[in-house]
């Protein structure tokens, strides 16, 4: 079986010379298709750095990365946007919606930027917004939505075009405990329904039970990742 994520010996050094800082060191990280993995670790341990490399928004200094068998490392930078469009949906810490666009248009933009026709994009955006419970709020601008609602729009956007991989960096950070749990439950449920592979970076032990597996990272190294079913 082809792994969804197959990273071997990933390393990342920021800066150069005396200021060089090693954020990742020989990271091996594998995820099977459809698996939901949470990446946890202390602040500054390299979670975001690893997620950025997996999301093709940052390039590793060493090591090899394949997504669904497709080699990512070694590709020229200008091909990375294509990989992102083809394979990856993102949920950010902040909602990162485009403030000038309605909820629907934020979702549509992702679809249309992948070549979906306006009509089909509109229909899919509406279906996704209905699935995240925002059918009646689809014409609102992000500023007119609550934090939890915005994050749900962000989930709809991440799932637009049915990407096989969804990456989320602390999706609950800006939300209160209740909303955080609700949003993560929504994300995990929708991804499981679709068979989407998910990696979630989180500090939030109230959502650990939703993971298939929890990977621990410290000082840029994976210290514990083979355990599954760890609950708080």
């Amino acid at each position, binding site marked *: 079986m*082809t792994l*969804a994520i197959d990273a071997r010996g990933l390393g990342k050094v920021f800066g150069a010379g005396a200021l060089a800082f090693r954020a990742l060191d020989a990271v091996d990280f594998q995820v099977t*298709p*459809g698996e939901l993995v949470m990446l946890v670790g202390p602040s500054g341990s390299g979670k*975001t750095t690893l*997620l*950025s490399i997996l*999301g093709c*928004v*940052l390039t590793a200094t060493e090591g090899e990365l394949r*997504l*669904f*068998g*497709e080699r990512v490392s070694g590709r020229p930078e*200008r091909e990375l*946007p*294509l*990989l*992102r*469009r*083809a*394979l*990856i949906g*993102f949920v*950010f*810490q*902040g909602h*990162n*919606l*485009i*403030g*000038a*666009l309605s909820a629907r*248009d934020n979702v*549509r*933009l*992702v679809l*249309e*930027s*992948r*070549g*979906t*026709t*306006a009509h089909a994009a509109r229909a899919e955006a509406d279906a996704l917004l209905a699935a995240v419970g925002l059918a009646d709020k689809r014409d609102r601008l992000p500023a007119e939505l609550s934090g939890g609602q915005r994050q749900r729009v962000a989930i709809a*956007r991440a799932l637009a075009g049915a990407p*096989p991989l969804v990456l989320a*960096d602390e999706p609950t950070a800006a939300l209160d405990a209740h909303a955080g749990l609700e949003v993560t439950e929504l994300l995990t449920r929708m991804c499981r329904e679709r*068979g*989407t592979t998910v990696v979630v970076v989180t500090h939030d032990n109230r959502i650990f039970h939703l993971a298939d597996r929890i990977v621990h990272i410290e000082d840029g190294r994976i210290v514990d990742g083979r355990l599954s079913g760890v609950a708080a």
Partner: protein
Amino acid sequence: MTVDVAARLRAARGGRLRRAQATTVVALRMMLHDKAKLIGTTLGVVFAVVLAAQQLGVLFGLLQKNTMFVDNAGADLWIVPPGTTQTAPGQRMSTALLDQARATPGVAVAAPLLMIGTSVTKPGGGSEATTLVGFDLDAGLGGPWNIVAGDVAALRAPDALFFEDAQREKFGGLNLGSVREVGGHKVRVVGFTWGLQPFGPPFAFADIDTVRDLGAVPADQLSFVLIKLAPGADRAAVAADLAARCPTAQVIATPTFHATIVSTLLRQQLGITFGTSTAFGLIIGFIIVALSMFSAVLDNLREYGTLKAIGLTSWDLTRMLIVQSIVYALLGSLIGLGLVALMSAGIRGPNLVVIVPRTLVLATPLIMSALCMLASVLALRRVRRLEPGMVFR
């Protein structure tokens, strides 16, 4: 779930047109969303358009004052003293040139023109400078135009003159039939022109013999010879022929004479003065547009980063800024040209006409688009350098 990566890559590679359309809409929405920046940037363009077009309009108006005689004399060719760069009283030539010209094949009409600087004595004392233009009434070349009162035929009467309407007050309340004194002779006003004021003293028109009398000019002298070509005659060939026959004078085609007057004025003070103020307007507008577009990008850096993260390319974002630049340019040009039109209508008078030629109107949106795109380079560099990974920060 098995994932057909090749198919997904193929799909993501296509749809370029949809992506261009979608990002164009987003660019416009982002632009409209931030009203303050929209207004600020547009005002920058408006400022540049108004200042530059207004300055150029005044410049063209001033140039026109100096070329209007050449443009309206009705001649195809001019015989002028060598080195002539304006239609004003100057060195005189011999009337023998008229006979030379009339003997040249292809010349239908050769008419004399006499320009002298003189002054008109006012009833209450004092005098005003004027440029007397004597022309051949039968040939009809070099006579008055823009006539607002009187009939040219009235100039056949001895000592009859056409004056400039705008100077009526200055010449002591001129009316049709008013009598003034020029060079010790009584003259009578028989008509008025409108807006015929060169840089120098205003034109007053009369029959050439009247002007000779008033100015005591010998009968064998003239200022210029105006030539009308026979139908079908080749202007360049006739000009060459005339030049060979009149070695002491210069033969010049009307468009060339026009161009000579313009380039002479531009090389002098006029070009520098108006060039500087036009450039100033463009530069200020450029700076306003550049800074407000840059700050709009800084305000929305996270959004641009997000667009990159979801897979838009640097070129997609570049195109977004180009679209915004062009819309700012078109919007600003439209408003700016509208204001210039209003201002021109307000300023327009016999002494100063603001001329905004059609070419300038058409060129303005193009020039402004180029200017705005250039101004967006600062913003563009920031957007292109943006790391998509910043969205996780």
